[in-house]
């Protein structure tokens, strides 16, 4: 079974530029999560999708961050414009609907963003 795929793995941009990250969850997984992991901290949930609907985006900075999950499969997270404090690893995770009983999330390798 293929794992969660993310691209790019690394990205360096200047502040005020835009950037987009892509995530392909495990086949059949209905729930998709985006986390932000700043150096020295634990991952922080940005947004959770159930199929193509948003379940929780309470910690997403909506003035600059946006995310979509068209057709309930792949997802894209965008930052526009980027700030220095957005430098972090962006992790994507997925889980099947039945994970509501197991609570297990499967994580991708992450995208390391550096804003200069």
């Amino acid at each position, binding site marked *: 079974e293929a794992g969660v795929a993310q691209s790019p793995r690394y990205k360096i941009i200047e502040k005020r530029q835009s950037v987009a990250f892509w995530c392909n969850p495990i086949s059949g997984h209905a729930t998709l999560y985006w986390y932000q992991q700043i150096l020295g*901290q*634990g991952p922080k*949930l940005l947004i959770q999708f159930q199929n193509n609907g948003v379940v*929780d985006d309470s910690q997403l900075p909506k003035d600059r961050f946006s995310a979509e999950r068209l057709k309930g499969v792949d997802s894209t997270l965008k930052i526009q414009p980027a700030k220095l404090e957005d430098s972090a690893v962006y992790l994507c995770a997925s889980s099947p609907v039945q994970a509501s009983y*197991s*609570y*297990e999330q499967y*994580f991708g*390798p992450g995208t390391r963003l550096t804003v200069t």
Partner: protein
Amino acid sequence: AQSVTQLDSQVPVFEEAPVELRCNYSSSVSVYLFWYVQYPNQGLQLLLKYLSGSTLVKGINGFEAEFNKSQTSFHLRKPSVHISDTAEYFCAVSDRDFGNEKLTFGTGTRLTIIP
């Protein structure tokens, strides 16, 4: 609101020695508890989880953890560590809320195994 405290940011341990990584949580409701491991340049992998039942939970790679409700703790242990256990370990908590599997993570403990 939930929170997780990992008291040790770094733990050096000699190879084949035992290790305990500490985790305390705070929540106003019943919770589920997890330990994830992150190897360099990789995503997080589930080590073990406590959902219900026995308070002693066994996971992969010889790790185990014990849920202590009175002390609101979920410490991770391994009786004999190996070089390959070098990684970052994260404790996480989730409310017992069906359909909302939001995880709140601690700040992590970096485990370094000394040969």
